[in-house]
């Protein structure tokens, strides 16, 4: 649907209550509506037109709240940003999460960070700022909250404890984390069970909350880029790329062709490495030791390959708004492609062997099933969504970096179980290796950087990160500093849907389901 269709249809339904215009920065339809209409419009876009919800951006203007709800669909459709404005004194907005479940955590976050109230939302409290560390009403994302000051005085609630939902006789709550037996990121789970099965799975996240969105404010774009690159190292290149693309949209520049091709090359290298690591995690969770160490070998080889090619094993320090900081030699790229092809060959062998390891398959098949409908209403993204039959890939839907010129498939499965998620990872790894090859063939000599001015303005940046669609909203102030940096990472969406997979499955399947869900805590916690 193009912009004029959209405005026509909206005018038919809501007449002059909504205003549709092209978003001043970037190819996006901006729909401005009164707060009361928001749930209706969100429902229409999400449930009737099959748009996906990407995230909620809250901005505090001097005089008013500006809430932006991002929606997108397929390539021929214009992305839609629904904008609601209200005076600062009014803090109440209608909730859309009873229809768009994916907005649930976005609204909780806005409540915790800005003190907004979403009418109709159950308001569970204790989300980002933990109630056993912070008192109510801190609202760190408000402008009046100064990061430079010492941490505010703490008046935590000493009687706070995690809420228990299951109240049948014999029910008990199993606490796990945040410090684990082994190498896992810090997160707490409360698994409520009666006997064998997990009845409620409540992850308590944000132990690693580093306030990236807040501390980015007031920094020069180059320094905020350091944060974008470093808040989640396993998809560092992807998030840095989203940041740079937002900067380029604001500055109105287009990176040169060679830079774009190299970006595709490196982004796919990162995806390949990430998927190998994720498969390793699945093998490990089922205690298939040889397979896990075989995957670990491949992962280390990919890390070394990245290190030898770019100087850094996690691809730090390469991106800059307008292109890349350093060029890669064509020969080195070709060697990397050959190495990646060899790794893919061995990955395929291992895939075959796994297909014949019945004890392994038994632990994955029909375990942790997420249906297509649930995956959609909860807004799951990435390989997890694609394993449940939801085709979502922003490389196709909103192409960037010239992805439209490359030939690749978006693998899809329909079972939605652990094994489907594993198959997706294998299939996508093969696609990534092929994309690396195509990018290598498409490399032409040329510059790698166009100067990117830091103009005032705002824009949305997006990439298909290894774990799924990642969006970020960047606003640059008159002084050329970052005024707002909103992150909508894929793990945030998928953690919200984890309970779909874990509930009603046996307790001992929990680690396996967790591994197949391929979640990053650092990416979620920011």
């Amino acid at each position: 649907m193009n912009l004029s269709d959209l405005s026509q249809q909206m005018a038919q339904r809501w007449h002059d209550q909504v205003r549709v215009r092209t978003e001043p920065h970037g190819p996006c339809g901006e729909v401005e509506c009164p707060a009361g209409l928001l749930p209706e419009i969100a429902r229409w876009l999400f449930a009737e037109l099959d748009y996906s919800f990407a995230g909620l951006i809250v901005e505090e203007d001097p005089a008013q709240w500006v809430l932006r709800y991002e929606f997108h669909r397929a390539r021929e459709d214009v992305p839609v940003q629904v904008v609601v404005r209200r005076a600062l004194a009014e803090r109440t907005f209608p909730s859309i999460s009873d229809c768009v479940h994916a907005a649930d955590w976005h609204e909780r976050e806005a409540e915790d960070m800005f003190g907004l109230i979403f009418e109709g939302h159950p308001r569970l409290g204790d989300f980002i700022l933990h109630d056993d560390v912070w008192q109510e009403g801190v609202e760190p994302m408000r402008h009046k909250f100064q990061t430079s000051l010492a941490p505010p005085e703490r008046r935590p609630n000493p009687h706070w404890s995690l809420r228990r939902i299951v109240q049948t006789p014999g029910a008990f709550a199993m606490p796990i984390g945040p410090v684990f037996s082994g190498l896992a990121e810090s997160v707490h789970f409360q698994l409520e069970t009666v006997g064998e099965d997990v009845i409620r799975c409540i992850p308590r996240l944000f132990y690693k909350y580093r306030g990236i969105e807040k501390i980015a404010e007031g920094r020069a774009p180059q320094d905020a880029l350091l944060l974008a690159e470093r808040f989640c190292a396993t998809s560092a290149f992807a998030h840095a790329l989203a940041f740079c693309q937002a900067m380029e949209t604001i500055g109105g520049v287009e990176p040169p062709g060679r830079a774009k091709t190299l970006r595709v090359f490196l982004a796919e290298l990162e995806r390949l490495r990430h998927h190998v690591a994720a498969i390793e995690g699945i093998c490990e969770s089922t205690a298939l030791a040889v397979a896990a160490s075989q995957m670990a070998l491949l992962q280390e080889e990919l890390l070394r390959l990245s290190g030898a090619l770019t100087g850094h094993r996690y691809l730090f320090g390469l991106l800059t708004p307008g292109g890349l900081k350093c060029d890669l030699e064509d020969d080195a790229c070709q060697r990397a492609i050959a190495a990646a092809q060899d790794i893919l060959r061995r990955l395929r062998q291992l895939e075959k062997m796994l297909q014949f390891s019945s004890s392994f398959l038994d632990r994955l098949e029909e375990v942790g099933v997420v249906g297509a409908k649930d995956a959609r209403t909860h807004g799951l993204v990435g390989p997890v969504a694609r394993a449940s039959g939801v085709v979502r890939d922003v490389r196709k839907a909103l192409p960037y970096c010239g992805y439209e010129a490359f030939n690749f498939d978006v693998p899809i499965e329909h079972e939605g179980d652990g094994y489907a998620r594993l198959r997706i990872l294998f299939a996508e790894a093969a696609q990534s290796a092929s994309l690396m090859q195509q990018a290598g063939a498409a490399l032409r000599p040329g510059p790698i950087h166009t100067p990117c001015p830091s103009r005032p303005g705002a824009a949305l940046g997006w990439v298909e990160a290894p774990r799924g669609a990642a969006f970020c909203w960047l606003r640059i102030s008159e002084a050329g500093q970052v005024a707002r940096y909103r992150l909508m990472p894929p793990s945030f969406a998928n953690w919200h849907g984890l309970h779909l997979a874990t509930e009603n499955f046996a307790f001992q399947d929990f680690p396996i389901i967790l591994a197949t869900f391929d979640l990053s805590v650092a990416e979620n916690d920011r």
Partner: protein
Amino acid sequence: MSQWVCRGIKTRIKTTHYPAQAETAPGVSPGLPLGGAYAAAVASLVNLCPTKAISPGLVKDSLIVDYRRCIHCFRCVRGATTPMRWDQGWQWAADGQKCDSVAPGSEGNRLGRVFAHSVHIIVVDAGDCGACLNEVKQLNNPYYNMHRLGFFLTPTPRHADILLVVGPVTEHMRLPLLKTYEAMPTPKRVIAVGACALSGGVFGPSFVSGAGVAQTLPVDVQVPGHPPPPLAILHGLLVAVGRQTPASITSPAPILPEATTR
């Protein structure tokens, strides 16, 4: 299942010979910038560094790099008119500040000799970005295989001799970290891994993040790098049990008095 056994045998031994021999494979380390004489470029290089890791040395026209702060942004090489010289190695682990909790006469930052070939480690993620933790994880892969050197991960702090901390220590993780430390039996040592754990990196200090582990716990061994490659972490573990000599946390050594207190 026999297919896996065959596969394992066919793969042969991949393990590095470090520490007996040097590891020469490309890409094992991102390296770190080297301080020293930089003539006229001193002022410009100092300004390039976003984390103030580079400062002018006492000797004229020289630079000191504080490895606790270097976050591998490569600004001092890529695009610098006089790029910094680069150390491609990884033997960076250095002693932390001596802690008061160690009884006089004991071995200070080292664990005693009885631990030299059997050490149990607990890892706490205090807010890392996933890179340091992943590099620690690589120590278990066949390329590094820390078991051969007598290092083992343990599931419980009650069995741990070494607490390995990654991340800048976020507000929410401070208490879990302290509780883990207190649950460990003595003698115990703390290794802080990564620039974030040593200085807060790009994250701290801020309203939700500390400026490293030393604010919360006495640190015995510091492993710089962002992230430190697996070999650097291995070097740190070997330093903690006295099997390798520590390096200096600044380049060039010796450490200046003001650089040690932070």
